[in-house]
């Protein structure tokens, strides 16, 4: 049985099957956010509005669009709520609101008030707060892409990450089933027909086994609607910790979704190379995505999450950048990718947990990355490939002496935090890869020591 709180939120925000009564269109996410804020500020709870005379609780509320009449007719939809919920719950659908423990925390954190007030779902709701990698791709994908997606899903499961996807045909479905078939976990965020998908043979046994959660912010019987699909895209990114786009056109859902993610910088965005001349993959890299060059079995998924992290210097995290080691000529670009990604570190406490012991040494608060002892980090990072990429950059860029400031404005290092840069430089100097040179007795510069690096690169 639903709590009065959930009932009130549903009455105010959910669409129910059947005809909408009069002008009672449910509150949008933004409208709900505004209204909920006002209630909170006035010490009212949504469930208070389920009293016979609710208007008494709204003294002072006045809004052009969210009128008392509209609220009244929304709140009077009790029969529709009861009939719909009876049907949905009978089919095993559950409802969570923002105040529920299993509501995806990342979503609230990244989207704030734009996170949907309600999710309908089926399966294991605890998965919604599991660390996951988003996998997206256009519905019209080649057999090859689908095979890749399946393998990607399976490997992601092997790395103990959930696959987060949209449950659409094609890449979404292949990636999710790839994970599920090897007993991994997946979260599908659907834009339509949750009820039908939950009852389908392909997902049913995984839902029963507790390896899958299917959720939708829309009514479980909603049919396809482009607006819903677009709105849903952002939840896929924001519920994951990194995203991989297997294939994108130059328009449509995947294209727009990836660009939206790049624009907002929600999670590191990885793009699989493709032979398809029509694909938008390369353009998306130009817009800030990173090439994902490895075969799925060689991807280090944790590295996708946090490719090169200033505040997260644990061995585990740093080793992730390995995934970006290219076998071909554009090594520098690969290094660039990693370092750039490092700068995109999300302010994310869920990640800190994954970082293990070293996370205790740092208390990253907000965007400010307080580093207790950069040197200590550098030591930890020494064994790591990322450091080697840094050295590679130095080899070419510091052939002539460079100050730290000059290094920092290099495009490849532009996004690396200064503390990290200093730590690496100190270590490189200590290890003898570079020499500390004092130019004209003023500024300290660093220069690549070719003779001591013969066997290095």
């Amino acid at each position: 049985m639903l709590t009065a709180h959930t009932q009130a939120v549903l009455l105010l925000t959910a669409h129910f099957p059947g005809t909408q009564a009069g002008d009672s269109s449910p509150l949008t996410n933004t409208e709900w956010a505004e209204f909920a804020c006002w209630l909170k500020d006035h010490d009212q709870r949504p469930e208070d509005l389920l009293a016979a005379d609710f208007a008494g609780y709204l003294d002072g509320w006045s809004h052009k669009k969210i009128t008392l009449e509209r609220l009244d007719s929304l709140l009077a939809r009790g029969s529709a709520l009861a009939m719909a919920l009876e049907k949905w719950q009978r089919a095993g659908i559950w409802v969570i609101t923002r105040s529920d423990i299993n509501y995806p925390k990342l979503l609230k954190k990244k989207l704030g008030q734009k996170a949907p007030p309600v999710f309908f779902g089926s399966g294991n709701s605890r998965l919604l707060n599991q660390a996951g990698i988003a996998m997206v791709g256009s519905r019209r994908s080649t057999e090859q892409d689908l095979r890749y997606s399946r393998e990607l899903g399976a490997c992601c499961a092997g790395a103990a990450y959930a696959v987060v996807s949209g449950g659409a045909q094609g890449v979404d479905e292949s990636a999710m089933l790839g994970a599920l078939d090897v007993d991994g976990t997946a979260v599908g965020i659907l834009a339509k027909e949750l009820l039908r998908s939950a009852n389908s043979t392909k997902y049913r046994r995984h839902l029963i086994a507790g390896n899958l959660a299917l959720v939708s912010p829309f009514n479980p019987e909603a049919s396809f609607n482009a607006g819903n699909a677009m709105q849903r895209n952002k939840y896929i990114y924001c519920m994951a910790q990194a995203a991989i786009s297997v294939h994108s056109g130059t328009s449509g859902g995947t294209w727009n979704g990836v660009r939206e993610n790049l624009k907002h910088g929600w999670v590191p965005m990885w793009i699989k190379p493709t032979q398809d001349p029509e694909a938008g993959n390369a353009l998306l890299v130009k817009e800030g995505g990173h090439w994902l060059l490895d075969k799925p079995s060689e991807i280090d998924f944790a590295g996708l999450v946090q490719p090169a992290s200033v505040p997260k210097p644990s061995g585990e995290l740093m080793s992730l950048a390995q995934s970006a080691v290219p076998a071909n000529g554009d090594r520098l670009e690969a290094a660039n990718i990693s370092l750039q990604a490092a700068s995109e570190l999300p302010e994310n406490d869920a990640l800190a947990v994954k970082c293990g012991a070293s996370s205790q040494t740092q208390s990253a608060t907000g965007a400010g990355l307080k580093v207790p002892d950069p040197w200590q980090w550098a030591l930890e990072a020494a064994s790591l490939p990322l450091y080697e990429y840094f050295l590679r950059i130095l080899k070419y860029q510091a052939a002539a002496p460079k100050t730290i400031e000059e290094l920092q404005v290099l495009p490849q290092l532009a996004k690396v935090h200064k503390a990290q840069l200093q730590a690496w430089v100190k270590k490189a100097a200590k290890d003898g890869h570079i020499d500390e040179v004092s130019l004209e007795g003023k500024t300290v510069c660093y220069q690549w020591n070719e003779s001591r690096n013969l066997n290095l690169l």
Partner: protein
Amino acid sequence: MREYAEHILRSALDNPQASFHPGQWEAIDALVNERKKLLVVQRTGWGKSVIYFLVARLLREQGRGPSVIVSPLLALMRNQIDAADRLGVRAITLNSTNYDQADDLIAEIQANRVDCLLVSPEKLANEDFVTRAIEPVLEQIGFLVVDEAHCISDWGHDFRPDYRRLLNILMQMPPNMSVLATTATANNRVIDDVVAQLGHIEVQRGPLMRHSLSLQNVVLSDQGSRLAWLADTLPKLPGTGVIYVLTKRDAQQVRDWLVHCGINAQAYYSGIEHDDFTDTNHYREHLEARLLNNELKVLVATTALGMGYDKPDLAFVIHYQAPGSIVSYYQQVGRAGRGISQAYGFLLAGCEDQDIHEYFRRSAFPSENQVQKLLDVLGESDGLSVVELQRHLNLCQGQIDKLLKFLSVESPSPIYKQDRKWVRTPVSYQMDHEQIARLTRMREQEWQEVQAYVQTDDCLMMFLGKALDDPYLNPCGRCANCLGQTLVATEPSLDTARKACQFIRHAEFDFQSRRQVASGAFPKYNFTGNLPQRLRASKGKILSRWNDAAWGRLVADDKHAGHFQDALVLAMAEMIRERWQLAPPPQWVTCVPSLRHPELVPDFTMRLAGQLGLPFRAVIDKVKDNAPQKLQENRYHQCSNLDGIFAITGDVTNEPVLLVDDIIDSGWTMTVLAALLKQYGSGDVYPVALASAAPGK
């Protein structure tokens, strides 16, 4: 507001002195002004409908949407609609009988011209109906009424699956929705259960005793005596009434007997059909209306004539067999005498009651095996229709329906109906054996309570009142026990008893061969679709029903003993010669072969042929063994189990033939053999058998 409401009541009743019964206004006030949830327990006729119609009206006047009344009535919503009309409430009903007008009615609702919508729980559970008729107005519904709310509780005598769903709807009703649940038959346990499940619901209850009803019990163990008692007693009773029976077969038999005795009676049960009516609902409505207008002396009904049948001048209710619980007895007998000063309730207890109730209890729940098989089959698919399920599961339609109903009202349920197909949901499911055991134990206790009622020397009405936890009790002063003398004779006359016994022994009935074969079931015989007329059997006869009081018991005993005695040969020969006008008459006799009992039927048939003076020719061979036909539970399996099993090997002449078997179950064996005989050039084929074993008929 009270004055205003009372004013409406007065003009409705056309009585300026009228006022609310104690409790009526309080209920209206709580529902309209406080949006409360209320359970009202009052006897039928007290005026529960005044509450909900006035609430509907007052809410409308406050600008709320229409009210919905869920009530298990079928046809007689007419009464309610008229009552609503007098209170200035525009009520309509949407049900299967006016489905063709649904568009107009829905348009009326959408145009805001309807105050009250009456629907049955079955309709409310029907997804198609809800989508079409309810959803367009669902968001505006302002008030929900659940009539006969005791059905919500599985402690109730009459728990119904569709009410289980209604309960789940009620549980989801937010606090700002007014809800009224009403019942006339709830004991404390049921009330407590409803309150516990629904949470914030207030209870209002009044006295349940009925003051115009005189009760008497009559113990007559054999059916012949009870039939005779009915024939003797009915003509002496004033007015019209209802006889309740436990099975459809009994409804038909009692009706036939009464008609045989010149009493104007009709049978009534779910699925009853009549050639003059398009479907069973129309015919049932017609029967209800005929009783209502006193055009019938008596309607012989199963419990299908159920809650909500409101005929104020119903003068008697007779139970041909004891009902399963006191509460259901109270409810059924309580239909008599609502609007008249004298009415009668007789309970005839018989020896077969016990067995029937045990069968009901045993078959009340599907078996674990059935459940598991269904879930396995659905789990492998993306949805199956009932017809497809029949192929996968060897269960009859009724069993499949029951199984689906049982599972589909669970919440969450392991199955769900989606686009007219059943799908498996992602809900893991375990049958609740403990609950099933608890409910079965309770049914046993209820049955024991009925036995105690039959035996008691105390006031019968008080016994009923106690079982209902009625707080307002005193001896009725008008039952056989209070009076210390019988209201009517407890023994039938010898003459009628003799007639009744003969009637029972001549209770043979027609056999109609099957027509439509299951698709894909006969690849060898190549039968498809409807069997053509030229291959169909003529109308046949069956001497008795398996194990019945006439010949059926003898057939059962002899089948087990491996030899049918001459008495059965003579009885069948007499039936064929004297009561079955066969034209053209049969010229030879053949029989259904069996590999398990190769002699039983041929031996019987040979003696029968001898009695009839016709040649016996065993022209049918069973060329392949198959599973017993009686274990095939649905048409597909019944058909495919026979494909290629028989061959015609002897000399078939182009003359009418009697085709003899001992037991007819689904009728497919007779149908297939008649078709084969006719393919081989025989004349008309008359199937004849000693007994039918079709279940539930």
